[in-house]
């Protein structure tokens, strides 16, 4: 009986020692915590500013406008490029299949021979990637997209295009984050 009591007391004492001394049963140990840290993510967005304008000879187009060979139509739209991120890089490009797909390209639209081009002013990074209307951007800011469509004069199809209805579909402007070197 005494042995049983003695053993029980010893067990309780051992458990009490373990819980209050924070010691290991066999080896020393210590712990530490990292400091809490919060991050705010960057951003990459395009926001149109104001109202876009289709114009010719410096005047906005109205319902009476009738383009003829030699005319140049311009589309002007301002954008705010919101770009934040320590290592962020991106490109802006006109989506394939839009009316203007390469600088100075010539094409026929609804029987009308056109030459098209797109420019960014100012070019955010003063660079252009290839001939597919893509620009590398490394900082945000306001820029203007200008699409220029010139009606080539003196081509064989000009007379046939008299009175034709010409539809210029929307062009999609893509902003895409690009991978950066680690």
């Amino acid at each position, binding site marked *: 009986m005494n042995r049983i009591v003695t053993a029980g007391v010893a067990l309780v004492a051992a458990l009490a020692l373990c819980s209050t001394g924070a010691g290991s049963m066999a080896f020393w140990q210590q712990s530490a915590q990292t400091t809490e840290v919060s991050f705010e993510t960057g*951003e*990459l*967005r*395009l926001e*149109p500013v104001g109202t*876009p304008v*289709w114009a010719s000879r410096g005047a906005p*187009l109205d319902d009476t*406008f*009738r*383009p*003829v*060979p*030699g005319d140049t*139509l311009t*589309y002007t*739209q301002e*954008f705010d490029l919101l770009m934040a991120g320590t290592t962020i890089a*991106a490109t802006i490009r006109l*989506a394939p299949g839009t009316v203007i797909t390469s600088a100075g390209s010539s094409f026929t639209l609804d029987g*009308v021979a056109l030459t098209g081009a797109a420019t960014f002013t100012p070019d955010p990074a003063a660079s252009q990637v290839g001939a597919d209307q893509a620009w590398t951007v490394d900082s945000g800011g306001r820029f203007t*997209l200008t*699409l220029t469509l010139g009606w080539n*004069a003196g081509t064989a199809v000009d*007379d046939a*295009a*008299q*009175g*034709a*209805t*010409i*539809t*210029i*579909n*929307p*062009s*999609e*402007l*893509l*902003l*895409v*984050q*690009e*991978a950066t070197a680690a």
Partner: protein
Amino acid sequence: MSRPSTPTTDRRDPRSPRRRNAVTTVVIAAAAICAGAAASQSSTAFWNDAETTEALTVTAGTAALSLDVTEQRTPELAPGATIEGSTYALQNTGDVPLRVTLALSASSENLLTAATTLHAWFTVDDCAGLVYADVQALVPNGAGFAFGDLEPGESGVLCTELTLASTASSASSGQTFPSLTLTIDGAQTR
């Protein structure tokens, strides 16, 4: 004694209805996830954004001339005589400025056509004054000439005179003029 066969319900058996249901559920869920990603235009790795330009629909302009006979004359010519010809109202009814040229043609040639000259000029209102150009001479099937520019909407009067040369052969007497055609052509200038 053998037990009657019953449809299996073991999920490990590919023929099991329970297994087929599970596979169908997984396929539907995967398709829904893919469709959701596509609909939200989310990228799988990097951010992106897109904006579109405004569309434009316009109707192309035209280059057009209208010509109406205001006075039809059929002069009877004699050697050395100059007789007033027909007059026409000419208007640029298109959307572009036009450079107008005249040319005279004959369906055939005879002694009369060889000795005939048509003078033409363009005026604002009547054939008394010259505005756009001096009188120009045309011979049948000869070279044409440009007599002026017409802005869109601008109009005027085209005047003509016919002269039979005094040197016309007497054999031309009594001959019939072949059909003479005055062709007016407008070419866009800008």
